[in-house]
């Protein structure tokens, strides 16, 4: 089974995203900020990370930059999922190593379409 770590400081968003991903046959785990996400990745690296931008402690872009420097193991596919919907944020995310980018609000169809883009559907 494919697995996904959903990183978002909103419990509601995590729940909605997890439900959609579970429907799409993903095993899901959750983290509420970048620090928790890093810990989770160091324990078990997921295949996919759905990543919010604005979070306390460590935000999405800092997390991503740290993650992409990690040497050991496979690098996961990272899909941003954020309300930061402007081109400069998108470009910054892509150059930091994001594979795809979802602009909130999202729905099931968008998640499916974006997973197809990264070859996970």
């Amino acid at each position, binding site marked *: 089974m494919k697995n996904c770590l959903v990183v978002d400081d909103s419990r509601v968003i995590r729940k909605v995203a997890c439900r959609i991903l579970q429907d799409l046959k993903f095993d899901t785990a959750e983290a509420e900020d970048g620090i928790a996400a890093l810990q989770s990745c160091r324990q078990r690296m997921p295949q996919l990370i759905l990543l919010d931008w604005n979070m306390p402690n460590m935000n999405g872009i800092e997390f991503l930059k740290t993650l992409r420097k990690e040497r050991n193991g496979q690098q996961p596919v990272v899909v941003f999922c954020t309300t930061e*919907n*402007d*081109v400069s944020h*998108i*470009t910054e995310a*892509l150059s930091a190593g994001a594979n*795809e*980018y*979802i*602009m909130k*609000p*999202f*729905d099931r*169809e*968008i998640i499916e*379409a*974006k997973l*197809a*883009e990264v070859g996970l559907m």
Partner: protein
Amino acid sequence: MTPDDFSFLAQMVRRRAGLVLTEKKLHLIESRLSTVMRRFGFRSTDALVKELRHGRETLARAVTEVLTTNESSFFRDRAAFEAFRERVLPRLIEARAETKRLRIWSAACAAGQEAYSIAMLLDDLKLQAQGWSIDLIATDLSAEMIARSEEGLYSHFEVQRGLAIRRLVAHFSQEGGSWRIHENLRRMVSFHQFNLLDSYGWLDDLDAVFCRNVLIYFDQKTKASVLDKIAEMLTPDGALVLGNSEAVTGLSTAFVPVDRAPNTYAKTKTIAQRLAS
């Protein structure tokens, strides 16, 4: 709606656009009609159909358009577009190396997503910079869809279905919550209102035809005649791309499926083999 009115309506849209209405979809049909009723100030479908029976052209046209399904997305059925990019397009470019001319038709383009998807693939290849002349023609029955295509403005949801984020930032500019296709792609496509039941004389010498997710709404006879007309307009080594749930079987003998290219057809076995290689 009375059965009589329904059958009048069904005959009208079949004659005008080849579309088959079934009573199973009555609910959907009535809800779509309600927008025309509001626009033209009718209180009931009775009154609307009565007026249609008097042969009001503008009204008949609006009713026909509103009964079409305009759903689409960028790179819809991605495998077909991948095959077009990886197999069909390279072969066509090889074959046209002398004339440096490509003519492609998106036959029922809805809000333009299909045509602009093709335009993006062509833009990747930078053919125009190498002296190629590209005719990308896109048509639809619906005047409203043609206007939307020309506008080239897509919602937050539309640009997130089928479009890779890199393509979005490369080819669109943000306008509030919407995204507008860049002028260079916009200028690659010429949009026209056109009914697939009409004569295709002006669409000669086509190298590729995308006729997708529109045949499904037609009756058998219309499907067959559209396919035959396309075959006439397609160059001998050209390709036809249909929608995911469409096929030529039992409708036309003019086309051979291309292996390893989903929904793609050629006019002869030899060409089909070449495109599949």
